[in-house]
């Protein structure tokens, strides 16, 4: 069960951390339509978090709730990808990250619809509808901003260059992944690489962006071994009320 718990935390923490980062845009996006769209994405991701972490808490069987997992774990117990915790920086990086993640999530959630675990199937099916829409929007926006002006192209290239070393963590199979594959709960993440690479190449081409050549990949997020410095700050903000007033019901 430990591997299933880990697997579910990874799904839930990805949604939570990206949802939180996306929610930081609420009220300050470049245009009203973008504000509404980003908030929508954040809402979808927080909704997915509730499902994944809710199931994780059940599997753990230690009496914790989804909220306990979200608000009362410290950074080293988080299992999200490093790419999702780095700061938004600007609208360009925010959308580039969303795209790199969505391009993984769509084939990933599609595959999880065939999981041997019925709860995983249900959550994946619901999340896939949202992820498909997110991918349409993030890919379209990356193309528009890459193709737009010289300035916007330079910003999108900088965003891609910055995020690229974090992207490889998506496909770094480990013991938990192999355990999930052995019992047909989830395929190996590395199997998503061809579909992801094809989508990323197509979009980068349409966006007039150059894919970095390096295949170096940071790691440590999805295992919890070594997060970036940014996650602690994010959690300090996110968890402040639960930490300051232990046991209070909100």
């Amino acid at each position, binding site marked *: 069960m430990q591997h299933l718990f880990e697997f579910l935390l990874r799904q839930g923490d990805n949604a*939570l951390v990206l949802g*939180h980062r996306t*929610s*930081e845009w*609420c*009220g*300050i*996006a*470049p*245009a*009203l*339509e*973008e*504000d*509404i769209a980003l*908030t*929508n994405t*954040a*809402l979808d991701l*927080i*909704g997915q*978090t*509730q499902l994944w*972490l809710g199931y994780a808490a059940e599997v753990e069987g230690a009496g914790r709730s*989804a*909220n306990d997992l*979200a*608000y009362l774990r410290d950074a080293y117990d988080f299992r999200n990808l490093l790419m999702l915790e780095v700061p938004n920086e*600007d*609208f*360009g990086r925010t959308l580039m990250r969303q795209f790199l993640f969505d391009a993984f999530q769509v084939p990933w959630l599609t595959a999880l619809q065939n999981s041997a675990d019925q709860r995983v199937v249900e959550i994946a099916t619901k999340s896939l509808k949202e992820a498909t829409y997110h991918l349409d929007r993030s890919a379209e926006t990356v*193309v*528009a*901003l890459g*193709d*737009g*002006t010289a*300035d*916007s192209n330079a*910003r999108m290239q900088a965003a891609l260059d910055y995020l690229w070393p974090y992207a490889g963590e998506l496909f770094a199979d480990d013991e938990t992944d192999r355990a999930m594959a052995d019992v047909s709960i989830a395929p190996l993440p590395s199997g998503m690489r061809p579909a992801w690479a094809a989508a990323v190449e197509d979009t980068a081409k349409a966006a007039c962006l150059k894919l970095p050549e390096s295949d170096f990949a940071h790691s440590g997020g999805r295992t919890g071994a070594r997060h970036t410095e940014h996650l602690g700050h994010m959690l300090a*903000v*996110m968890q*402040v*009320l*639960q930490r300051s*007033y232990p*046991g*209070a*019901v*909100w």
Partner: protein
Amino acid sequence: MYAQMVKSTGKGLVARKDMLPEDRAFQDRIDAGEKIEPKDYMPDGYRRNLIRQIGQHAHSEIVGQLPEGNWITRAPTLERKANLLAKVQDEAGHGLYLYCAAETLGVSRDEMTEMLLDGRMKYSSIFNYPTLTWADMGAVGWLVDGAAIMNQVPLQRTSYGPYARAMVRICKEESFHQRQGFHIMMAMVNGTADQKRMAQDALNRFWYPALMMFGPSDKDSVHSAQSMAWRIKMNTNDELRQKFVDETAPQVEYLGLTIPDDDLQWNEDTGHYDFTEPDWAEFFEVISGNGPCNVDRLNARKKAWDDGAWVREAMVVHAEKKAARKQAAE
């Protein structure tokens, strides 16, 4: 009420006998309860007043995202975070419908945004107060959205069609927000001693600013008569303020909180609560730029607008390139 101190553009109420024939016909349509649509004749003053009023309302929705956005990243549970996100998203949506309603009167969203940012157009005084604890998310939903509903429900019957229709949709969402705010307050007053203290503190800070949302006292409200004749203002400021106090006072009692007004009491003779007027000197200071958050709020909007300029520009250029490529391919 998100429109306060909307300055009338006319020179006071024009008597029927002094009206131009087309203006008399226009007034007759309004008196008969007909809706005015964008392509219909309308007096210039009506158009300009409406632009100011709808614009002020739209700007209030947009600036109003900031005090609540201040707590989205610190919301205490996943459910509260989702609810607050959804509420602030609704406000952006309201801003969008209202800008669209104003655009039917011949002013673009970008022009209105520029007028907000350079101070030519205003937004509601309430959003110049800070949100300091989580209880403020309850108080804002309950009191601020509650006060807004008082004004907006009658505006569903306003004379200008696009405005009235925007208001129908907005009212549905606002009443949901008010309930959501009240539920936050309920959780706080049923919680720990710290939470109760936060709830009372929020009420103490938001009570009078909420009363100010209805605008100055009728005796000092010089612009109302024409707006009421045109049915773009449906009730006087004092009527709405009294209605708000009458509805809210029992809710405060139910919550076990205390309104920060020693003179607030039920008056058997009038069938209303007696209450202390807000400090109007403070109101006029806030309206003229000296509220606790005026500078920060406008700076935040300016920063968002400036930081987003490259995105808006790139989107336009991309759309043009795409159209040109499509044309070249045909």
